[in-house]
């Protein structure tokens, strides 16, 4: 995908001021790939094991509170 590196300005992300001018183009490509990788994981959503875990934690806490109140 060498063409990716040539698509420079359209995807230029927020650059920190200290970045050297000559480094802008590869930085844009790297920033884009980094977000692409990260977003792909985010888009996987929440695995069931975590939903179940939170449900159990929630329930355990409710049970504990019910005992406290009595």
């Amino acid at each position: 995908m060498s063409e990716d590196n040539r698509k420079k300005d359209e995807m230029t992300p927020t650059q920190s001021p200290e970045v050297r001018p000559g480094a802008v183009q590869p930085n844009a490509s790297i920033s884009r790939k980094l977000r692409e990788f990260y977003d792909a994981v985010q888009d996987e959503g929440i695995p069931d094991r975590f939903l179940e875990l939170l449900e159990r934690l929630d329930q355990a806490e409710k049970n504990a509170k019910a005992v406290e109140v009595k």
Partner: protein
Amino acid sequence: MSKEGEIDDRGFKRDLLASLPNLRAFAVSLTGRHDKADDLVQDTIMKAWANQTSFTAGTNMRAWLFTILRNEFYSQMRKRGREVQDSDGLFSERFSVHPEQYGRLDMQDFRKALDKLPDDQREAIVLVGAAGFAYEEAAAICGCAVGTIKSRVSRARTRLQELLGVSGESDYGPDAGDAAITARAFGS
């Protein structure tokens, strides 16, 4: 300032859930592996839940969770006796994953390059460049100065450029690419 404990449980759980996909992506970035990342996220959820009274309502829950996960990651690494690398060293084997798992070749190459970064540089560029934190927030999460984060991000970018090659010629197979990448990385 609202009192501690004033945040209602539902709100806590809802906010935690909302942060999970992002938190998980951070965990994958740190560990380089989905299975390890999910274990780390699970430990983080347990810790966060157990310490929810220490979370100050109205503050940034995402940053709070990221801090817990990061601490957990390094504490587990220390327990396993692995050294936290602070320089260019340690080409870990953890990125030797099945190629199909991470899609396109250029993305595989990117993941490999990311994995080759020192931990401190990797977390910095991920927090600022992907997770959506400001430099100041990333510094708070990592417990270091803002300037330190900035320089780590900058070094991470430079290193990724070296590893990936500006011309994009690392689009070949992983092995061929590796040799070139290694030569380039150590040559400079």
